[in-house]
Every structure is written in structure tokens, then in C-alpha cells.
């Protein structure tokens, strides 16, 4: 039996249907949207790429001179989301003997926006190929848009080998914080 509304729809009933339709539709939207957002934001605040936290055997002290050399730092073991890989490059260090006879290792990551800096032998300084920041051989800031000098990497010398701990620092800004 058709009810009376089929012939003469009341405005109240129609209004109820409209509100109910929007509410139900919105409910489904939230029920999908809320889990979706937490799913998408899963990597935020998580360390999704992690390397074995140990100093990396980089180079022999005997091979170092006053000019810095670029040494790739490879992780013995790396976890990248689901993958476990071995012998994976993490980054590079510029390593040299400093004036006092010690060893100095600088991250090759430009503290401005993260390009890889290169040593320019004729001028004796580091140059960033992207935005022309330049740094003294000691890593000290010279000029350009960078706001701090190159980031030194923790190191130790053991049995004539330089062991470097890789740290990726946050780029930008004048303070040096691990990313």
C-alpha cells in the first residue's frame, strides 16, 4: 500500500530524508577517511630507514693528507621499510689530516638544502654545486646561503683505520641536529 506521502510529500519528511542522507554519507566518509589518514601518516615520527648503529671502517690514516678525500660510508646492514639489505651506501664523508695531525671528517651533505658538496682543489675550499655556498677546508662557513659550516662526523682512529659514525643532520638553519 502506498502511503499518503507518495502522493503528497510533506516538506518535513523530505527534509528528514535530506539530513539523514547527508549524515549517513558523511558517516561512511569518516569511517573510511579516519583510518585512511592514520594509515597514510604511519611513517611520520617513525624511523623507517635504519642502519646498524656502529662506526664504519672508512679509510686508512696512512692514505690521508692535508687535502680532503671523499669516502663513501657503507652500512653493514640497513633496514628500509620492509627490506633488509647489506653493504648499502648511507652517505659520504670528506676526510683529511688536520693541521694538528688529527683526523677530520665532514659530512658531504650541504647544511643549506642537502646537495653534496665537493672539494675544489685550486681554491682550497668546499663548494656546493647547487646554491654556491662555500666552506673552508676546515668546514667553516665562508659565504652563500648556508647558515652553518659543514657538519663534522664523529670518528675514532683504531689500528691505523679511521672509523666514522654516519649521522644525517637536519638541513637548513644554524643549529646542528640529527634528522
Amino acid at each position, binding site marked *: 500500500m502506498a502511503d499518503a506521502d507518495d502522493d503528497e510529500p510533506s516538506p518535513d519528511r523530505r527534509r528528514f530524508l535530506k539530513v539523514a*542522507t547527508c549524515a549517513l554519507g558523511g558517516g561512511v566518509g569518516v569511517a*573510511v577517511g579516519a*583510518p585512511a589518514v592514520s594509515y597514510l*601518516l*604511519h611513517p611520520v615520527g617513525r624511523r623507517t630507514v635504519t642502519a646498524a648503529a656502529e662506526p664504519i671502517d672508512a679509510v686508512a690514516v696512512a692514505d690521508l693528507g692535508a687535502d680532503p678525500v671523499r669516502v663513501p660510508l657503507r652500512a653493514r646492514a640497513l*633496514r*628500509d621499510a620492509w627490506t*633488509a*639489505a647489506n653493504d648499502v651506501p648511507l652517505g659520504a664523508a670528506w676526510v683529511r689530516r688536520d693541521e694538528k695531525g688529527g683526523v677530520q671528517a665532514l659530512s658531504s651533505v650541504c647544511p643549506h638544502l642537502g646537495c653534496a658538496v665537493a672539494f675544489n682543489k685550486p681554491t682550497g675550499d668546499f663548494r656546493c654545486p647547487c646554491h654556491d655556498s662555500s666552506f673552508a677546508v676546515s668546514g667553516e662557513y665562508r659565504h652563500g646561503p648556508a647558515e652553518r659550516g659543514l657538519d663534522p662526523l664523529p670518528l675514532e682512529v683504531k689500528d691505523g683505520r679511521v672509523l666514522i659514525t654516519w649521522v644525517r643532520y637536519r638541513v637548513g638553519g644554524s643549529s646542528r641536529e640529527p634528522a
Partner: protein
Amino acid sequence: MSLGDWFNERTGHRRALHVALEEPVLGGASFVYVMGSVLLFLLVLQATTGALLAFYYSPSATDAWGSVAYIEDQVTLGWFIRGLHHHGASAMVIAVGLHMLQVIVYGAYKRPREVTWWIGVMLLGLILAFALTGYLLPWDQTGYWATKVATGIAGETPVAGQEVQAALQGGNEYGNLTLTRFYALHVFVLPALTFGLVAAHVLLFRKHGATPRWGRSDAELARTAQPFWPDQLFRDIVAMVVAFVALVAWTVHTGGAGLDAPADPSSNFDARPEWYFRALFQMLKYFSGPMETVVALGAPVLAGGVLFALPFLDRGADRSPRRRLLALGIVLAGFAATGLLTFISFQADASDPALAEREAAAEKLAARARRLAKANGVPAAGGTAVYATAPFHRARVLWAQHCESCHEGDDRKGPLIGPGYNDRAWIRGMLTDPSGDAYFGRTKLAKSEEAMPAAEVTGAELDALVEMVYAETGASDVDAKLAARGVELFSEQPCGDCHERTGDASSSGPNLAGRGTVAYLKSFIGDTGQARFFGEKHEMPRMVEELGPDDLQRLAEWIVWLRTATPADVERLDD
């Protein structure tokens, strides 16, 4: 001017909304018409969850399984999103079935809606193609083996079977190109085709309107018409919510889509397709040779052909089901045959206890693979390499290859080595019965004059000697006083005639210093013929060249672990 007016002046959205929403539904809104909207909703849900999955999924033979395991076991609510996508496909098949049933009962494929119907049949094909391509993407056992069957069928296409198969699977064998292909089809090609056809389907539906119940006059239909918005849309939304709640409930109930062990071409696996392909799967059991090809390729073509031809087979203007018994009978027979074959297939599986056992083993393997993947990551070599990350995996492989035949089982030639090896009980047995079967009984040495005689001590003295030998293993629970007493006895007893117990001095028997430690075992396994061990009396082959220091280390660590292990501990390594 309000913001709405400003916007309307530029977009004309009010008129567009009016056209889209306020068309009259002749004969009134009805729950009978909701399935099309439910399907559209499920399609949008599949697109949404599919896009979400793509944020984490990696279509490569080495990464696919690992990335899906990551979604399942590590990403926040990943199991839920993937579960919705997986079961959403089943929900679509059910909804398509109901939609088609309604259209067929109402005779909605009849003039002038034939093209709408044909597009619908094509969309049915696309949905099944989605299911087929999506099934492989996790690169797990189920997807791999079931899809192997599907591409195998394609390979039996007349004339150019090999070429068709190679084009589908991207080369001569399953691999990266298979996945990238299926992924591209699943994520780009099929959605584009579906989007286009759905748009045409909906536009044609709007052109002709819903097909009202048969036997009502035009005047009556017009009189009882109601607007789509909100009368019909409300009913549509209610149906969508019902479908959604059911889908969520099923997803939560099942714990999501599940994920089998990584695809392993060297394994045995009981390949089963999704439930909606079970009828076809079952049918293939009844045919072989050329007939099999005819059935496998012909049955879907025949079914599609009948559906396509339906508007021609059933041409009368009358839509009353009573006057269309032939057409309804054909469709019903098709549904019934499909249902029956599906039932037989599930029934056959349910009454096969051997299959249940294999499935339980497959489930156990899947759980193990996922546990290892979560704990250790998936090696870059791919999903199946995850097993190699288990504790002592490499050592046990080496053991099986190099050691087992002489140190385990009935045909062995050397001392038995297993759980409890070098613990106190083992040492006690060794001292009291060195030529016993579990010890050196099967060696040539035991049958020679140089065999070790049994220790002639008992009680507290034997305890002390046992403790002395046990202390050499470096175990943490050594009774130092008792061991010291053992050392005193050692020099009083004839033990010292054949055994040194310090440094690396050699004697006629093995030096006992550090016996049972990793360093000792590493050196011992490498070459038992060293002077401080058995010298020229050694019978075990040299391993040091064959295995190298890393593998010797692994074996030594494994044997040290065995000292405190029980048989149950060893079994648990395989869980």
C-alpha cells in the same frame, strides 16, 4: 551577493546539481533500484583503498611480498585498508550479481536500454579482470599459483597461445615484468576503461531512467513519480551503509585479506582461485586435452555471449517475468550451474583431510614468513629469502649438507650430535661408555686398541670429572669447586695419560682446553686432524677449505646452542 551566488555565477553549479539530483523517478523511489548506486559506491571505495595501498606497495618480484607483509603487519591499520580492498572485490561481485538479477527480472535490458546492458556486461568483465590481475600482486603462494593457472589457460589460446601468454605475463617466465604488467593493468588501464564505461552506463541510465515494475501505465508512473534527491538517494545511501557495514564487519571478522607465504616456484601449493572463479576451476577437472582448452576459454566466452545476446533472445515488449520464462530460465540455469559447480568445488576441498593438512602447513609457513619479515626485514633477494633470516638458518643448512649424514640418524659413522650435546649428561655418558653407540661406537677408533677406556670412577668422583670437562665449555652454571676437585682427580686418574687440559699441547687424545667452546669447535670442525685434537687418528674429513671461517663460526655457534637446547627447542625453530 552571497558566496554561493558568486560561485554559481562562475560555475553554474546550482543548475548542474539540479540536473544531476532532481530528476523524477517514475513510479516512485524504491529499494529495488539501489544496487547500481551500491556498485558505484563500492567502486569508489576500491579506488580509494587501491590508491592507499599504492602508497606502500612495490610491484617487483623481490619487493612485492615484503611490501604487502609490511602493510599487513606494520603499517597503522594497513591490514584494515587492504582487507577492505580485498573483500571489497568480493562485495562487488555479489553486488554485480544482485544488480544483474534485478535488471534481468525487470527486463531492463529490453529496448531502448540494450546499450546500457551491454556496457554493464563489459563492466562485469572488467571487474573480473580486476580480480584476476589483483590476485597476483601480493606475490604470495595463493596469488602466484592461481594466476599461473590463469595464464596457463591463456597459453592454450588457439594459433598464438605462446605469444598471448608471453604478452600477458611479460616474457617466458613469471618475474618482475609479470608484476609490472599486472600492476599497470590493475592500476591504470582497467580503472581508465572502467571509468569511461561507468560514465557511459550512468549517462545512458539517466537518459532512459530507471525501469519501473512491469504492468503499470504511463499515467500511473507519472503520477507516482518522486524526485531522485532525496527520495531515491536516501534509499541508495541506506543500502550503501548496509553494504559498507557488512564489508567492515567481514574485514574485521576475518582479520583482513590474509597473506600467504612468499611465492616459491620450488614448492608444492594447492592453488585455489577466488570463490567467484571456483565454478570455472571445478569445470576444468572434468576435461582434459583439447576439450580443456575449449571449456576454459569457451565457457566464459559462452556466458558472456549469452548475456550479450539476451536483449535479442528476449525481444517482446512485455516485461512481466511470467511471459519471459525462457529468457529467465536460461539465466537461472546459468546461475544454478555456476552455484552448483562452486558448491561441488568447496565440498570436495572440505572433505579432503589431506588438503586440510597441507593448508594448515601452508598457514604455518605463512605465519613464520611474516614473523621473520617483521623481525628481521626481507632480504634484498626477495620474499623467500626471509626464511634465511631465521636463527641458525645458515648453520642448519650447512649441517644438513656436511654433517648430518655422519652425526645424525641410523646410518651415521660418527658420534651422535643433537640437543644436549656436551651437557653434563652427555659428558657423563661419554666418560662411562666412550665406545657406546651414541658416542664413538661407530668409529674405527672405537674398534682399535687406541679407543678410550671407560673411566673407572663413580659417584662423587665421577661428578667431579664430569664437572671438570663441563667447565671447559664455558657454561655459566659451572660448579667451580666441583670442577676444581675434578682437576685434582684428572691428574690422579689415567685421563692425563692421553689428554692435555691446558694450552694447545698435543697428546694421544684430544686436548681438553676450551673443549665445547665456539673457538674450540670452530677449529675442531675445520680440521680434526690437528695435533692437539686427533692427529693422524682423525676420521672426519677436513672442512676448513670447504667452509671458510664464517661458516665454521656459524656451525660452532649452532653446536654450542645445542648444548642447552631440548628437541622441542629445535622444533620450535621451524615454527
